């Protein structure tokens, strides 16, 4: 799985919907029903999967699924 696929699978698990029905335009709160607890669970789960830290300023700008994927793409991920 590439980064985007991993991120989509994490979103799918937390939002409780199938990965196939997730589109880039979907809003985390309005469409995927993520309250602050779910949104934070998502953030930490992504950080764990990719072994990165997403700072608060970047996190505050995440509105859509597309925003999440773009952020994950832009972060340098440590090679192990």
């Amino acid at each position, binding site marked *: 799985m590439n980064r985007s696929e991993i991120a989509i699978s994490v979103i799918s698990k937390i939002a409780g919907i199938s990965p196939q029905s997730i589109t880039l335009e979907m809003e985390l709160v309005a469409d995927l029903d993520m309250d602050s607890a779910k949104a934070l669970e998502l953030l930490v789960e992504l950080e764990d999967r990719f072994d990165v830290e997403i700072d*608060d300023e970047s996190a*505050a700008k995440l509105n859509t699924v597309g925003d999440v994927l773009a952020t994950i793409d832009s972060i340098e991920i440590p090679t192990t």
Partner: protein
Amino acid sequence: MSDIFTGLPNDLRELVRRAAIDHADHGITIFDGRGRRSERRSYSELVELATTAAARFDALGVGPGEPVMVALPTSWEWLEAWLGLLFCGALPVASSGATGLAAAETQLGKVDQVMGAIGARHVVTSEGFRDQAVAGDFTRAADGVITPDELRSATPTLGFNPPTVSADEVAFLQLTSGSTGLPRAVMITHRGAVHNPAASTEGLSGQMHAPVQDWADCMVSWLPLYHDMGLIGCLLLPFLVGYELRLLRPQTFLARPMLWLRELGSNGRTFSPAPNFGYQLCVERFKPQQLEGVDLSNFKIANTGAEMVRPETADAFVEAFSPYGFTPEAFLPCYGLAEATLAVTFDQEGKGVRTLPAPEGTDAGFAMTEVVSVGRPIRDTRLKIVAPDGRELGGDAVGEVCINGPGIFAGYYRDEEAPAESLIGDWYHTGDLGFLHDDELYLTGRIKDVLIVRGHNLMPDEIERLADGVTGGGGLRRSAAFSVARGAAGEEPVLVVEADPGELDRLDQTAREIKIQVGRALGLPLADVVFVRRGRIPRTTSGKMQRSEVRKRYVDGTLEVIGGQKLEGENVRKQGG
């Protein structure tokens, strides 16, 4: 003053200083944002830090009695700033800063507005907040920033001698939701700030029927320090008792609730307060692999308050966590609010969550068949239940809960008219509904229009303004926000919007656009957006919207809905499963 004050100081600063002397070997451990690293300091180190910070604030020109905002996450920087301001004689005002997810702009705007309303020149906050304030053109906030680094690099005033205070002087301001969405600053006196934790230690006698310090050694808290339950209950009370204190950020708990339980199960005999949704979240996110070796028989006091206590949540929590040693008797319901400093009542039976069948008059929108005893008033505090005409009601009759006692606030800062609505004589009219049975309080609903969603207090205006922005409403055309509960998950926000017949084909789009605006600005998923014909949201003869009436019709099914019903995830949720 009563004898509980014997030996207790009249100055909150003195209460903090004594912790350093009386509990020299105890201290506070604060976790970082992800709950991975922590740093512990003793109470004496903390007092030293605060004393120096006070002299630094003085050097920076912060004067006695001046309100200064603190918008930082739970951290050593927060404690240094808040206590430093208290020690220098200024009025610390804790506020939520950027919470790390969505809504940054909304929070920033609020800090900026509050600064204007209370006349605060400064806000202690991060460099990142300053950058955002500059970018967002919040000039008041941007110009007033003092960062923790700037504070530490200020040369302390040599021989700084903070002013003495009397018990009736204001010690700090506590922000609470105001009727229009802009927070109000509750003035808490030194007397209230010392009395309330002291009376609470006695009220929290629980199943051991002994003051709380005799049967727990450590408090673990994830409650925000800008909330009354976090500040009074989880900081000032530990200072008084000398608890070992372990602080997590609220976001850390929301991301990983099991971390809280791990801490509670591995630090001796522990005590922690949380709103109902915190216990509910633990049940929803139960992860056995994260609880290996955790002994929750150590979790002696599971204080529950700050929102409706739901018996089904307590049952589910017991079922999930009794295999780890958690005992139902550890649950200790309570009732409190910022205008009472914090605590008003505690359950003092020590038998866990006790209920009565919900009486007639219980709010149907809360979906409760049973109501929970939140116990008896703490020392020196009295309760009465009144009818809408002000007449005092007898036992078992549902009416507005009114309180009287030394913790009652001294008014709202720079807002002299507001308390007149709620402070009548010596009695504070809470806007909560309930009844007394055997001198114990049971809550059944509320009159005030506040929404309490997963521990967050929100005023309906905050949602309605965003909706009106989408529909062009706000004048003759209205929208009404309120919350209803459908089960253990607690209250969920619902919005009713007025629409014209010509718009019927666009209602789904309008609803989604509203959900997006509310989601982005408040980080809050609306459970339901429904439309009614223009003019169908009831108003009083003077034109004031009657939200409670809309809510009643929504709940009992008599609201004439013309569209948009239950669009909650219907395209999304049902497919995955």
